[in-house]
């Protein structure tokens, strides 16, 4: 990245595809974007980008596409605040602003030869998707791949079609929180599904993204199954404005999540104050 350039100016990108993942009160849409002018934007799995809807503001969103995908950047966005609501109102062909990529990334180089277990809840599948699809794209570099994914209801499951296709490529354990008539898979919270399936910790790295409460119990249950702190990776989010460690609001202790995070191993995160 050219650090002498103006970090605050977004680059214009066209929304080339919008897919509704979840409707209703917890609406999620997936956006695929292409920069109008090539600008050398190259991200690593786990990194985020600051999306602009001009006139509304900016929001930091994790990039859900793999860097192996050269044709577009993908973001899956839960409608939550001012900017994400404005994004949900955009149409294909609309132009938004993007700056970044920001933050650290999953240390996939260190994971070569290991089995990877991805554990996601709700919209937490979006940040996982970038690292998961990168691992799939370089399958020969890793051992077995598996995914645990849960949502509140079957309606809240994101990437429904992709998950069906994924079942041909890796082990997929789906769950929803409460019973529904046509649901054939696990019923219960994601951490309980992990205890139910009892994955072995041997030569495994786990990557978990989701609501803080889910992450907390996923980690507890992984530890109960014998996983070490160094085998557990997660992402943290905090309110962000600048993305470059200056505006002063996303810090956890002396770490700025926008710059030093969002990816942490539990070995690192457990020593930081609970300020997220």
């Amino acid at each position: 990245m050219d650090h002498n350039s103006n970090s605050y100016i977004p680059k214009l990108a066209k929304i080339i595809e919008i897919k509704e993942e979840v409707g209703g009160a917890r609406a999620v849409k997936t956006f695929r974007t292409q920069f109008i002018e090539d600008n050398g934007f190259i991200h690593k799995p786990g990194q985020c980008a600051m999306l602009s809807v001009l006139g509304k503001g900016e929001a930091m969103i994790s990039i859900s596409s793999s860097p192996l995908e050269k044709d577009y950047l993908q973001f899956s966005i839960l409608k939550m605040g001012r900017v994400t609501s404005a994004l949900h109102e955009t149409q294909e062909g609309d132009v938004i602003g993007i700056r970044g990529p920001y933050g650290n990334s999953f240390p996939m180089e260190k994971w070569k030869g290991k089995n990877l277990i991805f554990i996601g809840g709700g919209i937490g599948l979006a940040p996982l998707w970038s690292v998961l699809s990168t691992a799939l794209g370089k399958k020969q570099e890793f051992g077995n791949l598996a995914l645990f994914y849960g949502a509140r209801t079957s309606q809240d499951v994101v990437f429904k079609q992709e998950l069906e296709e994924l079942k041909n490529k890796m082990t997929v354990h789906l769950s929803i929180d409460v019973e529904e008539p046509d649901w054939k898979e696990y019923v219960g919270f994601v951490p309980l599904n992990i205890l139910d399936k009892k994955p072995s910790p041997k030569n495994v790295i786990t990557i978990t993204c989701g609501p803080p409460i889910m992450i907390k119990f996923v980690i507890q249950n992984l530890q109960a199954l014998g996983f070490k702190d160094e085998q557990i990776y997660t992402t943290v989010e905090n309110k962000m404005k600048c993305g470059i460690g200056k505006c002063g609001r996303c810090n956890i202790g002396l770490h700025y999540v926008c710059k030093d995070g969002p990816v942490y191993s539990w070995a690192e995160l457990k020593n930081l104050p609970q300020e997220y």
Partner: protein
Amino acid sequence: MDKILLKKAFPQWVKKLQAYRLIAPTKDGNIWIYEAVTTPEDIDLEFLTTALSPKKIIFPQREVYFEFEKGDNDNPEIKETLPEDDPTIVFGVRPCDAKAVTLTDMVFGGDFEDVYYWKRRNQTYLVGLACNTPPNPNCFCLSVDGSPHSKDGLDILLTDLGDKYYVKSFTKNGDKLLNLAKNLFKQPSAANKKELQKIQTESEKKIIRQINNLKKVPPKLKDMWDSPFWDEEAMSCLRCGICTYMCPTCHCFDINDEVHSSAPLKGQRIRTWDTCQFPDFTMHSSGHNPRPDKASRLRQRIMHKFKYFVEKHKNYQCTGCGRCVTKCPVSIDIIEVLEKVRDYGS
């Protein structure tokens, strides 16, 4: 470069300095503020601590990042609005406020350089005035590695020697400003140097407020995260944020888009000062707030200034100007808070 400038020659030097935008302390009612001056008489060098430090000249309270406009069919246009070329002298900077600029330099520099900050910073000259007597009864610069005659951040430091100024230039830029009126400056005599020394020593003795052993505070803070101390200290806080808005070292900011309701597709993206003392500063859009109460926000303010910044930048993020102590409407006194931290548990 050491020089002597007679006070009666001072207006002539100021006239030369007006080749630049010249900003200096001026009296406005009961307070002093840094403002552009047009005549030497506008400058009041008998000033007490100014309401705001000169931070606002380099890091203004409102900065426009860019202007944007979107037609109905065209792609939006973004027009970067960098600060203009406008070389500026800030005259009469207190050493604490000049040192504070070296601290904001650390924040806005580093691996992502903030182009707005540096455009202003690189064309700003800082001409200091030593504090022969503390300009604020709550001055405590000596406790935070500063002094009333420190040169940190300054191009030039003036010390009042009665009918003359002892003028020290520390940088090439400082020399340049002296050379604008070369003939006004004389070589200091041995007696002048002796007098300077005496005034400097005396000025330090006049600073009443001190925190002994502040170096014990950063390691102490390590074990105080969950302490009820923060609740007790923050009890009276009104969440007004004045401690941070007046602070010469605080740098937190917000970024927002400003549009007029009649033209929602045309507007500006702006940066404005913000403060960790406001409840919504860290609030997620979900409503979750990692710093939900006054205690956690006071803790952040103290931890940032006396632990995180020390670990990251090897400096306290405080220069002892005393503004936050003087201005706090409920008398939360950072000196007392730090003394209590130092003595906590012992």
